[in-house]
C-alpha cells in the first residue's frame, strides 16, 4: 500500500532527501505499508477476492491509498 500519486507523502520526502544527502541518486520514493496475510483458501482466484475485500473494507483508505496484491 502506498499513498496515491497526488497525495503528499511527507515521510517519503524526508527519506528521499536523506538518501540524496548520503550521495545516492534516485528519482522518486514513496513510503508505504506492507501486510503478509495467510489464508486457508488454496484457490488463487478466490484467495485474491478475499484479500481484495480485506483491503477495501479495512486495510486501505481508498481516498488516499493505492494497493497491490502479490502472491508469495
Amino acid at each position, binding site marked *: 500500500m502506498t499513498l496515491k500519486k497526488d497525495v503528499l507523502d511527507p*515521510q517519503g520526502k524526508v527519506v528521499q532527501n536523506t538518501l540524496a544527502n548520503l550521495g545516492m541518486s534516485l528519482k522518486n520514493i514513496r513510503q508505504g505499508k506492507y501486510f503478509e496475510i495467510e489464508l486457508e483458501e488454496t484457490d488463487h482466484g478466490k484467495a485474491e477476492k478475499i484479500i481484495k475485500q480485506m483491503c477495501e473494507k479495512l486495510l486501505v483508505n481508498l481516498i*488516499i491509498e493505492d494497493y497491490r496484491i502479490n502472491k508469495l
Partner: protein
Amino acid sequence: MKTSVIVFPGSNCDRDVAVALKKMQFKNQMVWHKETSLPKTDLIVIPGGFSYGDYLRSGAVAGKSKIIDEVIKAAKNGCLVLGICNGFQILTETGLLKGTLLRNKNLKFINRDVNIKVINNETKFTSKYKLNEILKINIAHNEGNYFTDKDHLRELKNEGLIAFKYCDKKGITNEQSNPNGSLENIAGIFNSKKNILGMMPHPERMIDNHISNTDGVNLFSSLLN
C-alpha cells in the same frame, strides 16, 4: 437535551467532553464501544484521543466497532453527531464524513492554541457564533491535515459545509496560518445534511477562563437551543 459520549480504548478526551456537557446542562451518558445499542440521545459525541493506539490508521479500528453501526444508523435518522479530533478521524473512517486526515505536513505532533474562524454560523452547532468570528482553540494532533477530492471540496464550498478554518489573529487564512497543511485551511466540516460536525480543534478544552478561555462554550450552547 440528552447526549452520549462514545468511549474507546485509548480515548482520552471523553471525560473532558463529559465535564463540558455537564457544565452546559446536557444530560450525558458514557457509552462503551462494545455496547450494541445507544441510549435515547439527541447528540452523540465521539471524543478525542488515540483509539486503539492509532493502529493501522487513526480512527480505522474504532470506525469498525460494534457501537459505530448504531451511530451510523442514528446519524442517518438525523441525530446530531459531533466528532472532535480522533472523533473526526473516526467519522471519516466510517464514511459519515467524506475526506480523510493525513499526517501533519511538518510530521510533528502539534499541541497549541490556534485561531480558527467560523465559516458557517447557520447550523445547529454554530448558531451562537457570529459569522467570521475568530476563536482561539487548542489543537493536539498528529494527523490533522484534512484532504478530500476536488468534487467534494467544491461541494464543501458551495453548500456551506466548511464549519471552521485555521486563520491568524486577524482572520487571515493562508499558509502561514495553517498549522497542519489542511486543504484550504479546513479545521472542521459538516456532512451534507449538517447534522454531523467533525473538527480537529478541541472546544471542550475552552469552557473555563480559569484554565483557558471560553471560546468553545458557544458550540455547546448552540446545540442546547
